[in-house]
């Protein structure tokens, strides 16, 4: 069963992966350095599929894509936050790291609690309660469907997003 790693408000990309640790594109090195200073036990303790539950403005600051890549490489299956900083959210969707915006769950859970997340529907089960995440935008859904932005563009090109644009 996946477990929760709980984080506070305002977790910056500097906290997720400090500038001294992102001079690389190596996913394993990024995963090892994830939260290296903010929570040094994190990368050793995180098991595949574990979930981050965070407060407001998760991923604020730098546009460094190393941040969602580090979280993904550390094995995290989904990040649930009360709110996300725009660039981090877009980066996470682009690389296929599931991100779910959900306000209600935060005060109901503790670090280490078991949790089940259905990434596709956004349904979250923990402590015998069920929570629903906010519905992602249509472009985000299209990227999630394809897996990554690169896959979406490779397979369908911009038409995939222009169709959404025309339908609105």
């Amino acid at each position: 069963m996946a477990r929760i790693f709980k984080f506070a408000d305002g977790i910056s990309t500097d906290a997720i992966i400090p500038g001294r640790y992102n001079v690389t594109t190596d996913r394993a090195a990024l995963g090892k350095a994830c939260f290296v200073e903010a929570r040094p036990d994190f990368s050793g303790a995180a098991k595949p599929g574990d979930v981050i539950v965070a407060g407001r403005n998760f991923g604020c600051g730098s546009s460094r894509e190393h941040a969602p890549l580090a979280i993904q490489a550390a094995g995290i299956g989904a990040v649930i936050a009360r709110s996300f900083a725009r660039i981090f959210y877009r980066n996470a969707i682009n690389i296929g790291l599931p991100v779910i915006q959900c306000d209600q769950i935060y005060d109901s859970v503790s670090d280490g609690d078991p949790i089940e997340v259905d990434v596709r529907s956004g349904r979250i089960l923990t402590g015998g309660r069920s929570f629903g995440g906010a519905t992602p935008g249509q472009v985000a859904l299209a990227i999630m469907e394809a897996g990554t932005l690169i896959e979406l563009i490779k397979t369908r090109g911009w038409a995939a997003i222009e169709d959404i644009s025309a339908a609105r």
Partner: protein
Amino acid sequence: MGTLTEEIFSRRLGRRVQAGDVVVAAVDYAMAHDVTGPLAIEAFRTLNAPLWDPERVILVFDHILPANTVAAAGLHRMIRDFADEFGVRNVFQEGICHQVMVERGFARPGGIIVGADSHSTTYGALGCFSAGMGSTDIAVTFATGKTWFRVPETIRIELRGGLPPGVLAKDLALQVIRRLGAEGANYLAVEWGGEAVAAMTIAQRLTLANLTVDFGGKAGLCEPDEATRAYLGEAEVSDLHPIRPAYRELVEVDAQRLEPQVACPPAIDNVQDLSAVEGIALDEVFVGSCTNGRLEDLAIVAGYFQGRQVSPRTRTIVVPASKEVYLQALAAGYIQTFMEAGAIVMNAGCGPCLGRQHGVLGPGERALSTSNRNYAGRMGSPQAEIYLANPAVAAASALAGAIADPRRVA
């Protein structure tokens, strides 16, 4: 019709565009630097596509220049190989990417630019819609010349009155962040306007647009005017105004009543009046960055340093934003003033702002910086503390070895 953002997108797409619309738009330029560039290049290569336009791809070495580790040198090599292979000539190692984008004339009123750096909002000072993105988005633009946007709603900020002595554009931005919070403009565009902005130089407007991302903004724009025309050195800057705009929120700030503002650790919105933090001892003062490393900023600091010595217990580090700024500061005598005052002057680039190369803070140390981020660990040890302030406060604090009020420097 609409806000500056809606106007820019409507012109670009040749149809009426409104906030909330999802659009795929052609961009003028796509920029990446020595940290975000390598991931963008790797992602671009997985697309197996030709480069959209080598003249519109811009690569800047600034975050780790010159390379300080073998790993950094390796990334630099990779970027150079990419540039050679695809014929990218706009490769610069002459300062911070955002300053270079403005100095080299890439940022233009009515333009649309995407950059793989959050502070790409900076070019909004010239009336350009510019947004920071991650490496994958930039990679797709490298291949297609386009990206997608959800056209954002706009917060209009009216800065009333004139700036009192010792109060600068930085303080107005920090005051706004104090009021709106660190995610106050998340997903939104910001228009900076009002008398105080109309009276500002382009350098000051660049500070406002730059800091827009630090309260979440997707873009931060100033309406182009005579100052913009004069700065760009040309008569023809296409008219661009908000036309019957519907703003999501209007925020008014009375500039005249403002004190110098200081963002205290560990968050950009933990802002206090200068008087509340005066006297806090400092181990380092950093003057520079894409927020406040321009000639005007250095001129202010040189004015305070002239004939004085910085505190021997404090490292004072000055980093001009670009080679151009450096040369002008040399010609004006500022660099000599800094060095005679006991400051360390380093090569143009990002400098100590992001704690990766030099000027790194040790555990328990305190710094005051003219840059834009004060998260724990940003400039080095997570046990270090970072205060953010305007260049005049930085200068007075460097002289005192503690946070000090520039209005009281004898």
